[in-house]
């Protein structure tokens, strides 16, 4: 007795010209969706507290029916805090632009051109980024102070640099996946390197670039120690640092923390949704580890 799902597939392959699509409920489909529901619950359950507390007038750390109020969101949107969200946005945008553009150029060179010891260089950059940031902060502070860089813009660049090793890796691998014929053809047509990049490589690796960009953005978005230490003006501090305004030695404003966290996640979720399509096919890492 043939496997019913195969029968369904066979039906689907009868000449209609359409690609194979499992339209009927099969065992694997049910199983997959069940698994996803379980996973969804796994992600959702801890977050339930977050949603409940953000609208709770007397939020503690326990999960309970909220005493509905919008007070927490109002608190989280006070000028100080809203300003911090805005600072986060600026920091992360600058960091992402700096990181992704330089990573792209370097990744192209690593992928297409001969660099001596490229493997070891790439790998060692990757591992060295494992040094805990809390240690790095001491020499970085010294350096930034010396050059008078204790403000937002240089900090943003530093945040970009912290994502640079990973971004180079990611983009390099998506460039690796593009066949060389196109570039060869362009070379034969005497197209310069920049033109090749602009017309051929970038469009084809857009997914990879997008995914590296999101990685860089999230990396800068969540960082809290670097801005805390390096930005001297309190008004320029980003979201994660400002969140400590809700926690002091005497009391902790759980409701406001929850509301602020949700607000803080929104921009990234929006970013993800916007780039969703190109994004999902972007993290091509096959054959990355040579």
């Amino acid at each position: 007795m043939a496997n019913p799902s195969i029968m369904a597939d066979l039906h689907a392959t009868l000449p209609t010209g359409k690609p194979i699509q499992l339209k009927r409920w099969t065992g694997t489909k049910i199983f997959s969706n069940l698994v996803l529901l379980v996973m969804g619950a796994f992600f959702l359950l801890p977050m339930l507290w977050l949603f409940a507390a953000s609208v709770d007038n007397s939020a503690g750390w326990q999960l309970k029916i909220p005493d509905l109020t919008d007070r927490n969101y109002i608190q989280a949107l006070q000028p100080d805090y809203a300003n911090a969200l805005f600072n986060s946005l600026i920091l992360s945008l600058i960091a992402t632009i700096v990181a992704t553009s330089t990573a792209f150029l370097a990744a192209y060179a690593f992928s297409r051109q001969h660099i001596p010891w490229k493997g070891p260089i790439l790998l060692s950059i990757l591992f060295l980024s494992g040094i805990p940031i809390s240690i790095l902060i001491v020499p970085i502070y010294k350096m930034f102070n010396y050059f008078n860089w204790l403000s937002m813009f240089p900090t943003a660049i530093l945040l970009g640099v912290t994502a640079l090793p990973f971004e180079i890796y990611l983009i390099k691998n998506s460039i690796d996946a593009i066949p060389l014929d196109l570039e060869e053809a362009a070379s034969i047509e005497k197209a310069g390197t920049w033109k090749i990049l602009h017309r051929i490589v970038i469009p084809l690796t857009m997914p990879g670039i997008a995914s590296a960009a999101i990685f860089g953005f999230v990396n800068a978005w969540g960082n809290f120690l670097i801005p805390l230490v390096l930005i001297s003006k309190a008004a320029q501090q980003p979201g994660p640092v400002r969140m400590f305004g809700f926690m002091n030695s005497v009391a902790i404003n759980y409701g406001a923390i929850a509301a602020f966290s949700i607000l803080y996640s929104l921009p990234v979720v929006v970013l993800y949704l916007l780039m969703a399509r190109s994004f999902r096919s972007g993290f091509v890492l096959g054959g990355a580890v040579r």
Partner: protein
Amino acid sequence: MAEISQSMRNIATEALPEPQVRLDKPRFKPSSLILLLPALLLLVALFVYPVGYSIYLGFTNLQLIGPNSVNYRFTGLQNVSFLFSDAIFYRSLWLTLIFVVGSGAIATTLLGLIIAIALQKALPFIRTIVSGLAIVAWTLPPAAIAIIWYAATTQGGVFPVMFGLPHTDLLYDQAMLVVCVANAWSLAGLATIIFSAALRNVPSEMLEAAMLENASAYQRLSRLTIPILKPTILTSALLMTLLSFGNFTLIYLMTQGGPAGDTNILPVYSYLQGFQFKKLGYAALLGNVIVLVSGVLGVAYVWMAQSRRK
């Protein structure tokens, strides 16, 4: 004329992908330098110097504040000998391996893989919701994740109640387990994205052929999809390992390395030494150890990847 021969040479050197035989010996082209320059500048200025200096600090007696904060000196291997006699360090090392490999490499990668594969067959609204939730989990600020998981695992929290033991302190009874799960929860979104993309590159013709040959879904998965994904799996494992090393805030805020040092992984211990006990020199040495450990793990991954290709 010169241009044509130049472009011929370009084709010869650039267009041939490794590891095929080259027409002439590969040379480093100056134009590569221009492409590399921005990244190189940034990395050297903002990365190599601090990292090098941090490595050096591991061999000094620098303090964050105290007599040796302004006047500190190179102390050679003194910190190293302290390290070798530090019982807490050994335990910390072991806990770190469990955390980054168990939670980071294995658990997160597995989660991401399972979700990505399942997403392929998902109903559209389930796909949006579940992948959206995974992404949100990844993007929440670390302090928020710590609070959420603290709330979910202490007495009366979601998980103890679910398991029918509302008065158990899951967080303190099984600190390492909770922290590992929390770590996987916070990184799985990224792994899902990585695998979703890689799955799109699995050639559909092969899958169709397998279906026609009466291969079951499980067989298609284990014989085709997974082997094709193996390089991605390894690279994702490597990435998750490195990110887990960096997920120090989560543990620090949830348990501060406790109780009784049960979750005292190296990054947390390094922070404790450097910023609580103010011994920055020793903390930097612990940081160097972290780099060594991640280097060893990385080499292991590379070796695994290469042995598979043979």
